[in-house]
């Protein structure tokens, strides 16, 4: 399928803790010849903290409506934003009463259900496709990689775009780029603990540690992921986890968009590989 233009929803961490994900997403799409049009004046999707589904639907109706006016499907690199956009999309499409109620709040929330919401990983593998990607890949990733999917890529089933127990979208992409997948199946879809970071950090740290530790024991050069909250837990908080649990991990954590960027021959700094907290220099040396 040829994708040429998409509405881009960056999400709140895009200019802070996950700026490297935002940078690499933009650089990769440019290289692939896909134009991204940032959703004008976008608002937060509600993350995991807004529990009332109707409030989530209203928040996301505005972003969906802005993209719909442009006549573009909407894409995001964040798994939580994706989940909120797509579940709102489905609920609003299916329920006329809900659409009317949401539109009643403000005319800018008038969404007619005409577009799709997509996660970048889904666009790369299933819309652009491995064949087209392989024709553009110019470098080999000589890396052992632990592919970490987290929750919303494959769950819940209505919005997930991969198998809930054994997802492989990222595996396929990594193998296409020449990377080797390390044994990591039991950790692939385990939650990173992020939602409990601020209220039960003891649980959150231990959950994240299990994931990091498994990748390390499996001999991975890095963990690949696709969500800024997972990134914050596994990369941003890794030093706090090491300190709290008296362990040494030192495991680089990179976004799948950064790896794809490297394989496409994009400069490491343009992909924000100097912004990941755990040093990524060793990885760069293995891209040939």
């Amino acid at each position: 399928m040829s994708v040429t233009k998409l509405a881009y929803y960056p999400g709140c961490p895009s200019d802070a803790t996950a700026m490297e994900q935002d940078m690499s997403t933009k650089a990769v799409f440019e290289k692939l010849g896909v134009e991204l049009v940032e959703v004008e004046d976008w608002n937060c999707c509600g993350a995991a903290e807004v529990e009332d589904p109707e409030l989530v639907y209203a928040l996301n109706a505005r972003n969906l409506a802005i993209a719909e006016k442009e006549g573009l499907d909407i894409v995001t690199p964040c798994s939580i934003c994706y989940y909120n956009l797509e579940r709102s999309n489905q609920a609003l499409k299916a329920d006329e009463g809900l659409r009317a109620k949401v539109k009643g709040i403000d005319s800018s929330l008038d969404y007619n259900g005409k577009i799709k919401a997509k996660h970048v990983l889904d666009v790369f593998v299933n819309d652009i496709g491995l064949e087209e990607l392989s024709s553009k890949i110019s470098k080999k990733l000589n890396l052992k990689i632990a592919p970490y999917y987290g929750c919303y890529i494959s769950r819940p089933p209505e919005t997930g775009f991969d198998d809930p127990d054994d997802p492989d979208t990222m595996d396929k992409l990594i193998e296409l780029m020449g990377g080797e997948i390390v044994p990591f199946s039991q950790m692939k879809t385990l939650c990173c603990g992020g939602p409990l970071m601020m209220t039960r950090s003891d649980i959150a740290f231990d959950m994240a540690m299990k994931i990091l530790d498994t990748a390390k024991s499996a001999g991975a050069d890095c963990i690949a992921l696709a969500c800024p909250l997972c990134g914050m837990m596994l990369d941003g908080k890794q030093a706090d986890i090491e300190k709290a649990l008296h362990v040494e991990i030192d495991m680089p954590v990179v976004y799948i968009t950064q790896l794809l960027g490297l394989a496409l021959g994009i400069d490491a700094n343009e992909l924000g590989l100097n912004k990941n907290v755990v040093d990524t220099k060793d990885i760069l040396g293995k891209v040939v």
Partner: protein
Amino acid sequence: MIKTWELDPNFKEEIMNERGGEHLTACFQCSTCTLGCPIIDYVPTYNPRKIIQMSLLGMRKEVLSNPDLWVCLICQTCTARCPQDVRISDLLGAIRRIADKEAEAGKIKIESSRPIFDKAFQHQLAKYGRLYDMGLAKEYYPKREGSFFKGMMAMMNDYKDFGMRMFKKGKMGPKAMFPEKVKDLAVMKKIFEEMGEK
């Protein structure tokens, strides 16, 4: 022990009338949700199957004041595996919203700082339309600790190393001190007035 005279026969409907709680009665108590839940490794009492059973029985007060409601990760593992499509992850959210209203009305006490956090988060969205980390921390910590001073100490403790790390990577510059605002703030205000939990 079940005190039959304290059971609330309407609790079932109360949950099923909340968005996300609709499928409560589909549960046939197989325990798949509980056995696959990552939290059972950390909280020995954690048991979503039992929360559903107690809800079906009408044990309203016990369910709503159960602190375990607030350690759910919303990770959707239970929902993905349930053979009866109970949608437990959403269902627990529906129960938490009822519990929250009950606590706001002073009828129960919630032994968790999670509602304080979630509310502080939502206040940022209502005010700015986007997440403002600093604003969130400045509201959350003092409320959790019960005083401004203690709150600031706790915040420093959690953030001093992390903040420095982010700063070094250029992820927490002077810009992070101020909120990123949506231009159309009037619509954010309306959304929260119409749909928000007050």
